[in-house]
């Protein structure tokens, strides 16, 4: 018997605005209205400024560890722009731009990194999940959230974000397998930023692309230039359409780069070459978009100068709101363990400063007198 191929495939890479400023008119014309491109660019600049200020807050001791988003703004922003308000954004912790675009108040993210759970108190009606600290576990929640939309028949979808390192985690594979085999409307959006702290992508995945991991689950998959917001928007729109109409998931690998350290607690100079960093700085999604706007007469230096002032005021106000929040009562952490506080927690809360054992003095007294 002859040996025959039973399955053949290829992985496409989508770029619309490339790093040299070339724009694919066929794919890109009319994809995003000009005024929206301007709005997206403005948003990127403001988010970039937040990174700068957050870094300084951490260095001056006013905030805990913070992960810069620098260089990856086009990914989550493009996705959030392409999706609808009812769709879930199930994020990791480098998706500030998308979360703010959706409407998450900026001071909440600051509060989160200032060690305050109020930063995760997501306003009602905003379909986003809190920043996920454990790597590669939140994709399963997206699978469930997408499933719930399908169960209710409301044609909402869930889009989940994670890094290249997260694709080594078991939960990533379980989430992909569930979504594909149960026909769930989920978009898996991998931000391949080349590094998982100090470990390069090749140690997470030895195949030529991460995108092809989706093939194993019978899922549509594509690689996009993650620093090209046009490509991201198109890929997410196509995936959303597939999810809404056919309840089929899509795996998107967005190739981007972490221009900053992993977090403020990291020093990337210990493990990566300056040469690589300098090369990726030339592919910065913000610079690329600015070039597109300039070429079309939609932007200039004076607009940039006033935007910079606006960004500074905007961030300063957010920092002020985060810093001015009222102090939490010391018993606060007991309050949201359960909807109704059980007796053991009531007792521990009421005696937290009066008994080393959390013992109820009343009960102890009863024991002593009887």
């Amino acid at each position, binding site marked *: 018997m002859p040996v025959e191929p039973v399955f053949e495939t290829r992985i496409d890479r989508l770029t619309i605005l490339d790093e040299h400023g070339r724009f694919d008119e066929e794919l890109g014309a009319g994809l995003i209205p000009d005024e929206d491109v301007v709005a997206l660019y403005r948003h990127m600049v403001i988010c970039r400024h937040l990174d700068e200020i957050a870094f300084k807050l951490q260095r001056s001791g006013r905030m805990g560890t913070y992960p810069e988003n620098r260089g990856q703004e086009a990914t989550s922003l493009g996705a959030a722009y392409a999706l609808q308000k009812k769709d*879930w954004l199930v994020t990791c912790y480098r998706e500030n731009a998308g979360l703010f675009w959706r409407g998450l108040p900026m001071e909440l993210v600051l509060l989160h990194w200032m060690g305050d759970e109020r930063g995760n108190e997501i306003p*009602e009606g905003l379909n986003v999940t809190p920043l996920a600290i454990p790597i590669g*576990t939140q994709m*399963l929640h997206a699978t469930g*959230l997408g*499933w*719930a939309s399908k169960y209710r028949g409301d044609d909402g979808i869930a889009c989940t974000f994670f890094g290249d390192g997260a694709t080594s985690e078991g939960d990533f594979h379980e*989430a992909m397998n569930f979504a594909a085999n149960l026909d769930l409307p989920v978009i898996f959006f991998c931000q391949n930023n080349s590094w998982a702290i100090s470990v390069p992508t090749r140690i997470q995945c030895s195949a030529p692309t991460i995108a092809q991991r989706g093939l194993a689950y019978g899922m549509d998959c594509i690689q996009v230039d993650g620093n090209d917001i046009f490509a991201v928007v198109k890929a997410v729109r196509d995936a959303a359409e597939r999810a809404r109409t056919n309840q089929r998931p899509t795996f998107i690998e967005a190739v981007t780069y972490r221009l900053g350290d992993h977090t403020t607690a990291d020093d990337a100079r210990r493990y990566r070459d300056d040469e690589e960093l300098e090369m990726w700085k030339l592919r910065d999604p913000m610079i690329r978009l600015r070039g597109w706007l300039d070429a079309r007469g939609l932007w200039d230096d004076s607009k940039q100068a006033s935007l910079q002032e606006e960004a500074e005021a905007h961030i300063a106000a957010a920092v002020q709101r985060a810093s001015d929040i009222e102090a939490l009562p010391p018993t606060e952490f007991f309050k949201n363990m359960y909807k109704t506080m059980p007796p053991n927690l009531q007792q521990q809360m009421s005696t937290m400063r009066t008994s080393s054992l959390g013992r*109820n003095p009343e009960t102890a007294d009863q024991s002593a007198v*009887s």
Partner: protein
Amino acid sequence: MANLTLVQAINLALIQEMERDDRVMIMGEDVGLNGGVFRVTEGLHKRFGEKRVVDTPLAESGIIGTSVGLAMAGLRPIAEIQFEGFLGPAYDQICTHAARMRTRTRGALTVPLVIRVPVGGGIHAPELHSDSPEAIYTHNPGLKVVMPSSPRDAKGLLISAIRDPDPVIFFEPKRIYRAFREEVPEDEYTVPIGKARVVREGSELTMVSWGASVIQCMNAIETSGRDIELIDLRTISPFDMETVSESVRRTGRAIVVHEAPLSCGLGSEIASRIMEECFLQLEAPVQRVTGFDTIMPYYKLELEYLPDAERIGQAIDEIVAY
């Protein structure tokens, strides 16, 4: 009233809650067409359809993580993990996410999820089919942990668990799935989570247990002929210390019985609490009759491992003679 086994009582509770609330859905391995390996979900796939009774891929973390998402979106998933020995892969999703989502988001997102898990030994099962990991989940704040010892309680507790706004691990002692029948009300009723049941009143000593061990305690008490109070905790987290301490203050003696290993088992916590709350009434040290600090043996020796009426009887003799 119907005369039901524990399996039948749980099945009835599932049916009634699914009829009452269309947000309730069941998912897990083999729960659909097959009706579950213990037949707990028998007939539900046919009755409610594949949309609401779902055979999932074989992945415990996937089942729980996906359920967390379903619950956050406002559904009421009931996830089955086939045996307690397979909870391990789901531990991360249970403790990192299900247990923490409410506090992490200050109530903006919650996880009203029930995780049904057959538990414990005594049925001649293979390795990792006979463990008692309840204390592990009791040590994780944010979860509720329930383990009934009778069909009537099982039905009422499961209905409470399904209606509970927080994640509940509902352990089902497989040794008594079909060991006996009990009159169970056919209408819906709830048994409150967090309230123990005094199975038998007594004045000489207090025995505290849960799950299949309650039956072993009852046998030991009957053999001893003594006037012993038996408390079935029913809920392990948060457990009903009020009922325990009220009893121990009267009897002055306490024995805790569980299948799980001795060290850092829930018996340790109960003994500590009795010491704190009933110290001056105690006539003897609190005794524990438990599994050993070993891996649960394969089934040829499982009855040597599990607390039985004989070992419990020895503890009774010792504590009374102290």
